[in-house]
């Protein structure tokens, strides 16, 4: 059993990476969707900062629904599926993040520009993942033709 990191940008589209990652693995693993976002800069925002509130504000209804579909589809291959946020700014922080979450492997899209974390004011995780010593697997996913927030589930169900 491994802990597998999959970068996400909280669009239904990007769950295709997760789907392909699950399909490439044969056993049941723990999957962690990771998003990069800086901590708020002001002290008042930091005081009332809560990870769960942030996560629920990032996850749209259709994203949660799509996650549920995948979980049901691959019930025997997904041991756990959770979402985590990386707040760090440098490489060693990311190494610590990997160590803390005991991550063994990562799946990243072939085209590094196909994820759009900036839509929800996050930063790109791909350079961090590439630089770390993790076992990497590339996934064919680069047909992110148009960036819109009209997240219909159709994108996952009827590609």
């Amino acid at each position, binding site marked *: 059993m491994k802990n597998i990191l999959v970068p996400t940008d909280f669009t239904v589209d990007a769950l295709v990476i997760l789907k392909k990652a699950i399909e490439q693995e044969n056993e049941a693993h723990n999957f962690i969707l990771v998003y990069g976002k800086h901590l708020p800069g002001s002290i008042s925002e930091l005081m009332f900062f809560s990870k769960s509130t942030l996560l629920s504000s990032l996850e749209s209804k259709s994203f949660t629904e799509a996650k549920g579909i995948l979980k*049901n589809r691959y019930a025997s291959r997904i041991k756990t599926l959770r979402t985590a946020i990386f707040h760090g700014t440098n490489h060693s922080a990311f190494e610590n993040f990997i160590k803390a979450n005991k991550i063994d492997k990562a799946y990243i899209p072939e085209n590094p520009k196909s994820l759009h974390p900036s839509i929800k004011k996050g930063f790109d995780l791909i350079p961090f993942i590439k630089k770390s010593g993790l076992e990497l697997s590339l996934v064919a996913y680069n047909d992110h033709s148009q960036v819109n927030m009209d997240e219909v589930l159709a994108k996952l169900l*009827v590609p």
Partner: protein
Amino acid sequence: MNTRNKIILSLTALVLVYILIFCGFIYFSIENYSYVDFYKRLEIRAVTAAKIELEHRQDRDILLEIRQDFLEKLPDEKINIADLSGVDPRAKAKKLGVPVSFIEEILHRGKGFYNHENTYFSGIQYETQGKNYLVIASAENYYNTHHNAYLKNLLLAALLVSILIITFFAYLFSKMVFRPVKNIIDKMREISSENMHLRLEVPKNNEELKNLTLTFNDMLNRLETSFETQKNFISNASHELNTPLTSIMGEADVTLAKQRSEEEYRTALGNILEDAEKLSKKTEALLLLAHTGFNGKVQKFEDIRIDELILEAEQTTHKIYPNAQIHIDFDLLPEASEKLNVKGNRQLLHMAVSNILLNACKYSDFKEVRVALGVSDDNIIIMIKDKGIGIPKQEMQYIYDPFFRASNTGKYHGYGIGLPLSRNVIQMHKGILSVFSAENEGTTVEIKLPVCK
């Protein structure tokens, strides 16, 4: 009592209670202060009198003069000095008209205070040249009778005036607060079924009233739409029902105009039968629509496997359109098959799904139609996607109106009942039917049904 009067009354009462507490506090603390102050004055007088009379007898005249210059004379001022050794408290008390306890208090504690009605007594023990004296000064308290009474009257008058002022301001305040509400009421009175297009003006700087007017406007929008729908429905329905009827009447009229051969009668009757069948289909569809739209009706619900239902619907579609291309994608079907169960009415759900499949095939000229099924934690999601003519964006809001047909559907045969009927059925199962479409690109229909738990 209306809210405006309530505001005036409660505001006045609130401020009045506050002022009353405030006035009471001032009055009683001033009274207490003057009381203590008067005893102090009497004590000073007692001490000075004792000093003059007992210690500086030789300078008595000068001291008396100074005293008269600097200590004002109190009304009914009396000073009584007695040698303590020869004093019997009872006789002394009786002589001065004070209770014995007052004299005893002076003897015991060195000084004492007492007042009887408006006459105040202050007594001390004075020790000089090895002898103890009892000095008692008494006077009428002028401040209590005059100053305090004046203060009382002043506060009462101020209270009355402030009630008037507060009531006036509360009135102005409530008028100011309720002016926009009154405006809304006046405007709402103007709007009736005749001029449903009128809308309320949205105030800019009042959050609550802004929400209220927006809600009103929203409600008016919905009302207007439903009025329109009703109007459209009646005209559409009568038109739809009238067409086959006119055709039947025309056919019969022409046939009856002169004697015809048996063959001709046969064709004419055949045409009439065809039109009558059309009419019957339409009324049947209308009846179904009315039934499914009715909320209170008890439906027989059973457990249905949704994947079976989709396959059945596909077969039905193939029977009607043999050249339909339907691709069913069960790739995302859950591993646990019990999650595919839905509580519902089989006939109705079958009709709803096949209606949408038929539409997808028909309006895409039998191009590929993709159907996908997925199950999330709460919903079963059926996605039906075609690459057909789509729906014009400005007509999206009318697609659920019975008999409405989009402007680009001219060359396709249909009544405009299928989609509203499907939607009614899905809503009956507590599901959601949503349509996403772009003209000339295709339409995606998403059906969400709650998972049977």
